Structures are given as structure tokens and as C-alpha cells.
């Protein structure tokens, strides 16, 4: 599943950086005020549907990213160093 090319991996990392920022933007005023209106969607207030819909979308994107992010560094992910003697 991991991207093979370093440039693709770098692209995913950049995109992953945007995810929480985008979430923040969409959840904060003034943007969120767009949805704070007396409307309903299938009987559910629009603002509730918006917050929980956005929440679900963020989880799905994070799930999608979680398999695709990989280390740019040379060192392999070091396990909790149980034994690294003599180094």
C-alpha cells in the first residue's frame, strides 16, 4: 500500500499536513456560521448535520492517509530501544 516513489510520499505528507488545517478552517467561525441557520436536513438541523458530516469526512480522509504516509528519513523507525548495545 505504501507509495513507492519518494515524490509521491512527499505529496501525501504535504496533503496530510493540510487535513487538520482544513478541518480547523471549516469548523471555525466565520466559515461555520454559514451553516448556523434555521434549516433542517431530513429533519436534522443543518448545523448538526454539517458538524457530524464533516467529522465523518475527516475520519475517512485520515483513514485513507494512514496507510499512505511513510517516512522520508533514512533511519528506519526505531523500536523502543530494548537493546542497542555496543553502538
Amino acid at each position, binding site marked *: 500500500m505504501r507509495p513507492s516513489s519518494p515524490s509521491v510520499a512527499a505529496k501525501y*505528507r504535504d496533503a*496530510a*499536513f493540510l*487535513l*487538520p*488545517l482544513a*478541518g*480547523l478552517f471549516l*469548523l*471555525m*467561525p466565520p466559515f*461555520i*456560521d454559514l451553516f*448556523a441557520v*434555521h434549516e*433542517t436536513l*431530513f*429533519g*436534522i*438541523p443543518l*448545523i*448538526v448535520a454539517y*458538524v*457530524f458530516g464533516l*467529522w*465523518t469526512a*475527516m*475520519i*475517512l*480522509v*485520515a*483513514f485513507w*492517509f*494512514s*496507510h499512505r*504516509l511513510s*517516512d522520508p*528519513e533514512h*533511519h528506519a*523507525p*526505531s*523500536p*523502543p*530501544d530494548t*537493546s*542497542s*548495545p*555496543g*553502538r
Partner: protein
Amino acid sequence: MLSANLIFTISLAYVALLFMVAFVGDRQARTGQSSWIQSPVVYTLSISVYCTSWTFYGAVGSAARSGLEFATIYLGPTLVFIGWWFLLRKLVRIGHVHRITSIADLISSRYGKSTSLAVLVTLIAVIGTTPYIALQLKAVTTSIQVIVSSDPGNLANPPSDQPASEIAFWIAAGMALFTIIFGTRTIDANERHHGVVAAIALEALVKLLALIAVGLFVIFALADGPADIFSREAAKVLQTEDMFDARWVALTFLSGVAIICLPRQFQVTVVENTGEDQLRMASWLFPLYLMLMSLFVLPIAIGGLSVLPEGADPDMFVLTVPMSVGQDLLVLLAFLGGFSSATSMVIVASIALSTMISNHIVMPVMLRTPWTSIERSGDVRRLLLVSRRISIGVILLLGYVYFRLSGKSDALAAIGLIAFAGVAQFLPPLLGGIYWKRATATGAKIGLATGFILWGYTLFLPSFEGDLLLSASTIEHGPLGIGLLRPQALFGLTGLDPLVHALFWSLSANVVLFVLCSLLVEPKPLERLQGTLFVDVFRTPAGDEHRFIRRSASAEDLFILAQRILGAAEAQRLFREFAAGQGSDSDFPQPTDAFIAHLERRLAGSIGAASARAMVSQIASGETISLDELMKIADETAQLMEYSQEVEKKSIQLEATARELRRANQRLTLLDAQKDDFLSQVSHEVRTPMTSIRSFSEILLETRDLTSPQAQRFLSIIHEESLRLTRLLDEILDMNLMDRGEASWNLHELDASVPLSRAVETCRGLARSAGAEIHFGEPASAIVMADPDRLQQVVINILTNAIKHNTTAEPEVHVEGRLVGGEYVIEISDNGPGIPSHLRPFIFEKFQRGAAQSSTGGIGLGLAISKEIMKRLGGTLALVEDDGPGTRFRIALNAKALRSVAQRQNQAVE
């Protein structure tokens, strides 16, 4: 209706179940069957200690009062976790590499393993967490009271004023016992508390299921689906116009900070993490858990508001809504959910705090008292474990006392967010520590202390409404009536929500002082070192400190130290392993810098970085920190970039060289082809005269009756042909010498007209025999730098060609020498057939002949040689392009000075 006895029995049974799960989990981990406990799912569930009873019960209460606001408490952590790659991953990596035991340890370790900083962080954590534990105790006791003492008719007034203190006490005692048994098995904080984690994962599932069950019941049993719920009158709580204001932003920010900075969250997320893959899954699974926890909060709140009588406590809706319709099983499940939320938080928080207290307060005190100094024997390990167990007891006792003292419910209810704001003070030193190398301990201390004091003054103390330190009038009018210093309107800043107000002042002061002091104070060498190691954790290989810290200690002393903290067996194993790594069979490794650093890090995993350093320093001597090395590592990145630039430059150079080589190769191939042509031409040219010489000599040899004139003719042909051959060979030799630059030159100043006249005279004989006429006027004279024989050779060559190749009936050749500008120019023209235009560019090449092949001339080296000679003399030989008939060659040489004809004549006389 549930009886008190039933509730107690079920609580006890549930606690017994937790003990059993913890026991089994611990056993399995010990016997190596720990796969499910180490799974990312269990890790994620353990992070859900974030959802305490304050959120289990309180979220519904908050929703009933302020609508969607409750969601911020879960949205902040969601944003932090979906951005795990950039912050959490770095924290976890640092936690592994430096064997971090708590958030206090992380901050202290980063800032030069400072003990005082660790103490400060521990104090803030304890002050912030103890009321929070009290809140959990209160929630559990209140929930029990609500269940046992109210009948459905009395739900409007749950007896929260007199919480049963005995219940709280026994709950606290039970939690202390559980935590001591399963939370202090080993002293290495990096070793997971498998039993605890297993029990907490179970509790996480119970509270989630309980809330979902109540939510589904409200939506589908009490109401007619989600649309029906949201159409109730009570749903108007959602429509607060100014919901998305500063408080919304502040709460989201605060909860995002809390998920990192709360000691218990740091414990489960960073300290108990065993690999980055756990975090990878938690990055989406934990937000999903939070989303599911919040999904039914609004329906339950609206359901409660619609079903229950006016004035019912919304904080207990999760219990009272199912109670009002007599759903005993659901009530029980909801109670267990709340119980789970409270107990899991208490367990993890007390483990985290006890580690901090024992490592950062007990250990330093012990190290400074003479009777426990390192020289004396004694088991530090046992002492640490005992101190941790006592700490757990003390923390829970403190929580209980706090709960008894602040019986008034209102003071406790707000403590959740107040604690968040308290631990948010850790954020500047934490973020600064892992992203900013320049951040110093002084900056961290001053910032933290100021932020903490401001938080206490503007938020924590006022929340007691005059019962603690600050009197009610001080809160209202400021100390000594100074309005500017009013805790909730500091420096006249009014109109803000108290939480936003406190957060603004405390964090601003914290950040500003942290940054300013960091910039003003030079970091100590160890701070610089730790700063580099922390900030560059992904670039620096683990265990690199020994490159920078040099010190010496005996292996025996180190072993005694290790044994006292890790235990004899573990210490022996560690020493043997390292010795094996050094390639020796002995029990003790060489006490190199690498080994001392390795041991210190290992000890830090048990007693914290500051204490480990203090203890190692007691037996190690001559410590120096090499700043040069440190600079080097800082430069390594720069070097890497430089290196890649160099590589790029080199490859460009290589490319240029390759192009050059290709060009040279092409030239060589061309020259090779030319050489082949030359050879075949030479062979051909040599063969023709040779053939005629051979055939005529054969005739002479074989034919006996040859007449004398015939033989004479044949002999003269042979003679001519051999002359031609000699000329050809001379020319080739000459050309070859000239090509190699070996021809002899006799350069000196001379009058150019002299060799010119001589050449013309030489050719007159040939012209006569060819019937050609040479027109040669008196040439101008000028001094040129030349070899007279060579110049003469050139003129003769061209003149000969002009005579030989002239096929017209009355051949004429014109020769003139004159001065043009600074040049001496000789022009030789004839009235011959001229050179066809397509051959003109090639006449100076070897083996080209301007006219068609004829037997009269050489093989065509003449012009090439002449051109080369003129080049050597610094002049030119060119074919003049004109439309007249015949051919016109021009020879030009730099002239030095003009001499008078008289002089020349004098010279001629001499």
C-alpha cells in the same frame, strides 16, 4: 427500581471483573501471549481515558445548556489526531528514543535534564489533576445516590447536596488498590502496564456501549427517530445565535491541547506506546471513537429536556432518562458506563502522577539527603516502588479530601475545563522544545511559572467563589479594591468569557516570556545538546549522545548503580549484552562514553532523565560536553545539502566532459578516415610511376633488339617517373614534418621582393618550355619576417600550377608584389580555365587538385603545404574570388617597414 444493595453488588462484581481482566492481561503479557494487548485497537481504546465521567455525564449536561458547544471537547482532539504525522509522531519517537516517563520528564529532559523544571511541571500537574480526581469521585457517588434514593417522582431534585462520603471513600480505596496492584509492577515506565491497559480497554468499550444504548433508546423508544427528536421544543437549545464565538474557538483549542498535555493522556499516548503503527491506526480510530461518543449526546439532552420535569439536573440525564421510564437494565448499563469513565481516568491519572512524583520529587530529595546517597548500599528500586505506591494512595486521598471539602457541586463541575487550561501551560515549552533548538530552560521556567500563576489567579481560585485564598470581594472588586487587578477582568479586559479571559492572559504571558527569555539567555551546553537531539529526532540516530558527552567511570561503580535501580538480574543482562556488543565475553563491558550514555538512558526510563543524570554524574568524573561535535551535528544537514549540490555540479561537469569526449572522438574518427584516404591516395600515386618504371625496365631487360633511340626514350621515361616519385616522397616528408611542427625554419627579417624575384626567375625556364609568358613588373619592396626559401617555395608552387594547368593556347601568368595597408601582398593570376566553383573550397586540402587529374603535377600536396607554410610565417594564402577568367591567388604577409629602392639596390650590389 434498583436497590442500593443491588447497585453495590453489581459495582463490586464489575470491579472484580476488571481485576480479573487486568490479571489475565498481565499474565498473558508475561507469558508472551500479549498480541491482543499490544494491538493498535487496544492502544486506541486506552487513549479513550480522555472521556471521563465529566464527559460521560457532563457532555449531555453541556448540550442541554449550550447546545453544540460540547462537541468542541471532542473536535480539538480529532484535529490533533488526524494531524498525528506532524506532532504526535514526533512526541512518540522522542518518547522512545529518550525513554521518557512522563510529560514532566519530557520537558525536563529537553531543557538540560533540569530537576527544578521537572518539579514545577509535576506540581502544576498535581494541582490540576487532584480536583479532577475529586470530580470523578463525586460523579460516581452522585450517580449511586441518584439511582438508590430517588423514586421516579423525585427526579427533579436529586439529593446532590449530601453525597455519601463513605461510598466515595471506598471507591477511592478500591481504585488505589487496583492501581497499586497493576500499575506499579515494574519501575520502568516504558514497560507497559498490560493489566491496566486491558482493563481500561474494556472500560472504554463499556462506556461507549452504554452511551450508544441510552442514545438509541431515546431516539427510537422515547421518540420516533432522529427527525422527531430534533423537532421537539427542547431542540431550540441548538439555535443559540452566538454559539460560534471566541469561546467556541478557545474550547476547541483547549481540548486539542489537553489531548497532548494532560498527564494521563501523555501517559497512554506517548509513554505506553510501543510502536508507530499503533499511532497510525489511532489517527482515525480515536476520532471515530470520539465521534460515536458524541453522536447521541444531543438526542439524549433533548430527550431529557422534553421527558423530565423542569429543573431536573441535566448532568444526570444519562441516568435519569432511562430511570423515568423504569428501564432498570439500561440504567444499570448507564451507571456502569459512568463508573467506567470515572475509574479509568482515576487509574491512569494516578499512575502518571505517581511516576512524576516519585521520579521528580522523591528521587531528587533522596539524592540530596546524605543517608541515601549513592555510596551507601540500598535498593533504590524498592524505594521507588514504595514511593510510587504511597504516591498513588496520597493522590487518591487528596482527591477524596478535596471532594469532602468542596462539597458544593458548582465548584467541582467547572473543574474539567479549568484543568485543561492549567495543563495548557505546558504547551509552549513542549512545542518550543521539540521544534525550536534555541528554547532554554530559563525561558521554560519563567514562562511556565508566570502562566501557572496567572491561571491560578484568574481561573482556578475564582472558581471556588471565595472559599479558597481569594475572598468573594477580592474576586468582585480586585485585591485591595484595585479594579485593574480584578481576577476575572485583568487590566480592565472585560466582556470575555472567564475561561477565554484566563486562557488569553496566562498563555500570552507564558509564550511571550518563554520566547523572550530563551532569546536573552544563552543555553547551557547540555540544553543545546538535548535541544538538537529532540528537534532533530528523526535525523539523529538513537543513542548518539556519547558523541558529545565525555566522562569516565569504572564498570564496577556503574554496575552497582544499575543493580540498585534495575535489579541484579536486569543489570547483569544489560551489562552482558553490551559487552557482547563490544565483542567481549566478560560480564562487564568497557565503560566507554557510549556505554555510560546507554546506561543513563536506560536508567532514565525508570527514574526520569534528571535523576538518572544526577546519579550517573555522582560516579562519573571529568564530564565535558563537546560543543564542536554538537556544531558538527547541526551542520550535518547543511553538509548534506552542500553535498547534493556538489554532486549536481559534478554531474554537470561530467556531462560537459562527456560532450567534449564525444566531440574529440568524432574528430579522431574523421582524422582516421582522412589518414586512410591519405594512405590509399599515396599508395595509388606511388603505384602509377612505379608501374611505368617497372614495365619500361622489363621491356629494356627482355627485348634484345631494341634500337638505341627507343631505349633512350624508355630510359628517359623511367628517369622522369623516378623523379616524380622522389618529388612525391619529398612532399609527403615535408608535409609530415610540417604537421608535426618539426620542419626547420630560418626566420629573419628580409626584403620580400627578393625571394619573389628569385622564384619568378626559377620558373622562367618551365614557362618557356610550356610556351607560357610570365608578366612580372618591378615589385615593391618591404621588410617582412620570413624564411626566404619557404616563401620562395610557396611562390614557385603556385606559379608552377599556373603554368602547368593552363590549357589555353597562349598561356599567360601575371605576378605582382605590392604593399596594401600594413601587408605585403603577392598576387599570381593566370588566364587558364580557372577552378570550378564546387572544388574551390577544397583546393587547400591534401590530395585535392584544382584541375582535373593530370600526370603533370604532383599528387596535390603542394597547395596544402603552401597554405601551412604561410600559416607558419604568420601570413595567409587565399584564392581570390573574382569573376575573371583564370585563377588568382593572393599571398599576404605582415610588412614591417618600407625601404627605399636605393637601399635595396645597395643591398643587391653587396
